[in-house]
């Protein structure tokens, strides 16, 4: 979290969305749902172009929690993409994943924590990890592209092979500074 010389515009690697796509395909993910975030835009494009994955745009993030449970009932693996502001929308619906021990993999791009211009992003950013943990999810975090790829690979195995409910938080520092 603390860097002596933060360089806000540096990205360790620009191809992490393609790596995540490769990992999720290897994990046999067949459904992807999302509320858009700029940080997820490339991953959304990759999935949307994939005829073997059903992609759903949501009006609010908790819809994706319910869809993921339904997908699993029908034998398919699903992944849910959102930004941190969407986590608050999900909390009660996450009861379903938690009490039913449904595999759940959420990839959450963080706002409001690193060189954020919009103060309205800050409160939910602060609440993201504690609220997810309070409802029973395991939270994993990555701050570099290399770490993210490894973390998502591990999270996918935990979710789909061990019936766990996992949120991977993608640090805002990794995504880069939004240009205003």
């Amino acid at each position, binding site marked *: 979290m603390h860097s002596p010389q933060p360089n806000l515009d540096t990205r360790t690697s620009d191809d992490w969305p393609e790596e995540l796509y490769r990992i999720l395909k290897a994990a046999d993910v067949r459904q992807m749902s999302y509320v858009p975030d700029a940080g997820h835009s490339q991953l959304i494009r990759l999935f949307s172009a994939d005829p073997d994955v059903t992609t759903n745009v949501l009006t609010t993030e908790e819809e994706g929690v319910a869809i993921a449970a*339904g997908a699993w*009932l029908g034998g*398919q693996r699903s992944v849910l993409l959102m930004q941190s502001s969407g986590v608050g929308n999900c909390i009660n619906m996450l009861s379903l994943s938690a009490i039913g021990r*449904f595999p759940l993999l959420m990839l959450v791009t963080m706002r409001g924590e690193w060189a954020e211009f919009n103060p309205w992003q800050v409160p939910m950013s602060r609440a993201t990890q504690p609220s997810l943990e309070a409802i029973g999810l395991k939270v994993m975090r990555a701050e570099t592209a290399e770490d993210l790829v490894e973390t998502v690979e591990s999270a996918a195995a935990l979710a789909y092979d061990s019936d766990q409910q996992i949120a991977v938080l993608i640090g805002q520092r990794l995504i880069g500074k939004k240009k205003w």
Partner: protein
Amino acid sequence: MSVPSQLDRRVAVAALLENRKDTLVVSGLGSPTYDLHSVGDHDGNFYLWGAMGGAALIGFGLAQAQPGKRVMALTGDGEQLMGLGGIATIGVARPRNLDVVVIDNQHFGETGMQASHTGRGVDLTAIAAACGFAATGTVRTLAEVQRLASQIAEPADGPRLFVIKVLAENPPRSLPSRDAVFIKNRFRAHLGFAAA
């Protein structure tokens, strides 16, 4: 709206599911879960005891995963009102094998029969139609429910949403298992999937 429906919800649900064949059913929190259980427990039922607003969307994820099977989300007006956005999401995706059936007593029956929006002019079928559903309709009598059951058995071009207006009363509860892991694993086994 007009005169309140006199249709008994249990009679309606029994008629709706009398010839369900291999239809998979997800029931929404509250009375629809009891209604579904009251007509006979089934391995192809997934009963919700929470996750309000999620019934149609769980049915939707299931329908996408099982395009060869018919899926019904059987829910109540209050439960569906909490998931209004999901009607837009389903309308955009246009699954051909999902029917949302709302058992509409125009009240929040589980919490003391407080009046809901659907008795005050909010029409879920109009919302679904505006979201691109392939068919919608409202029924109020047993004969109409029987015709609806036949209609639902026919293939569709997209998602359908039907409202069954029923009498606002709470029949004796018929309680399925509250163990979601058990119900989940039983449901998946019914479709041939192993437990972890």
